[in-house]
């Protein structure tokens, strides 16, 4: 085969994989970045798997499209709904995967647990052993979450780590760390800020930053 036997339309939805060894364009918006050894290894692996008939470029693209549906906004939608709808909140606390389905969010991890912050307890999530995170809901974790510094320190000095994120808690508040080390995945339900009584569910969701969903930020009242 030649180096140019695929089209360059960059259209994920219309790749023409079939019998070609490499299917759709394997890259897109980062084409101007220098190729690294890791990316070259990925491309080599992908090419061989397709050539050997183990998977197709279409399958990768379809999965990519599914993965792209996950984002912190989906978690924020669940939290905002729970803030305004106590019955939904009760269902979410009992079975977060089923509650997510009510909002057309497909959570594929084995078990999703929502943990509620209260005025007495602030919760923080970490995966010390790797990078467990509710990816099918929130997408890929932020770089800080997978850093060795966070994984090492969050369990031993959570208040110092939270301080680096600009969060300080009074002496009577409990800080509770959740090591997401096995089969469960966690999302934090942050405290609803004061002064948001009149806001719509959508407006409430828009207030919730990504990092609040694992306990590394608070939700500020609207400016």
């Amino acid at each position, binding site marked *: 085969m030649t180096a140019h036997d695929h089209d360059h339309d960059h259209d994920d939805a219309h790749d023409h994989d079939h019998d070609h060894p490499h299917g759709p364009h394997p890259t897109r918006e980062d084409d101007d970045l220098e190729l690294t050894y890791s990316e070259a290894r990925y491309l080599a692996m992908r090419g061989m798997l397709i050539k050997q008939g183990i998977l197709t470029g279409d399958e990768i693209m379809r999965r990519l499209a599914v993965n792209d549906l996950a984002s912190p906004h989906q978690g924020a939608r669940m939290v905002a709904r729970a803030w305004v709808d106590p019955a939904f909140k009760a269902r979410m606390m009992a079975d977060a995967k089923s509650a997510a389905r009510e909002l057309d969010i497909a959570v594929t991890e084995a078990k999703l647990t929502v943990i509620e912050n209260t005025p007495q307890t602030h919760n923080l999530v970490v995966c010390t052993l790797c990078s467990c995170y509710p990816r099918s809901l929130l997408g890929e974790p932020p770089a800080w979450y997978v850093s060795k510094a966070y994984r090492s320190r969050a369990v031993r000095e959570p208040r110092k780590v939270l301080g680096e994120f600009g969060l300080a808690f009074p002496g*009577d508040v409990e800080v509770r760390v959740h090591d*997401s080390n096995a089969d469960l995945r966690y999302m934090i339900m942050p405290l609803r800020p004061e002064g948001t009584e009149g806001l719509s569910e959508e407006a409430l969701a828009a207030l919730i930053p990504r990092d609040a969903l694992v306990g590394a930020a608070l939700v500020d009242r609207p400016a």
Partner: protein
Amino acid sequence: MWPDAPRHALGAQVRILDLGKPGHVRTPLYVRGKVGVIDQVCGDFENPEERAYGRVGGARIPLYRVRFAQADLWPDYEGRPQDQLVIEIYHHWLQPA
């Protein structure tokens, strides 16, 4: 699926064992030997220590969330005495304490 040993009950005191098992395990060193309480009984899951070597579809074993006082995990803990940590531990790493 889990006939052999009684399950740990919510609120029970448990000690995390140090099984000294080589290879892939999900019980980090920092909790081994420590005493906590069962915070949640999570259901039964396949053992990752088997799955990590391609042995899938095996028996499901109970998984718990165990809660510790931070001061019990870290002798030099600098936070507040009420601070806690919760972690998932499989049944065979626990014994009543």
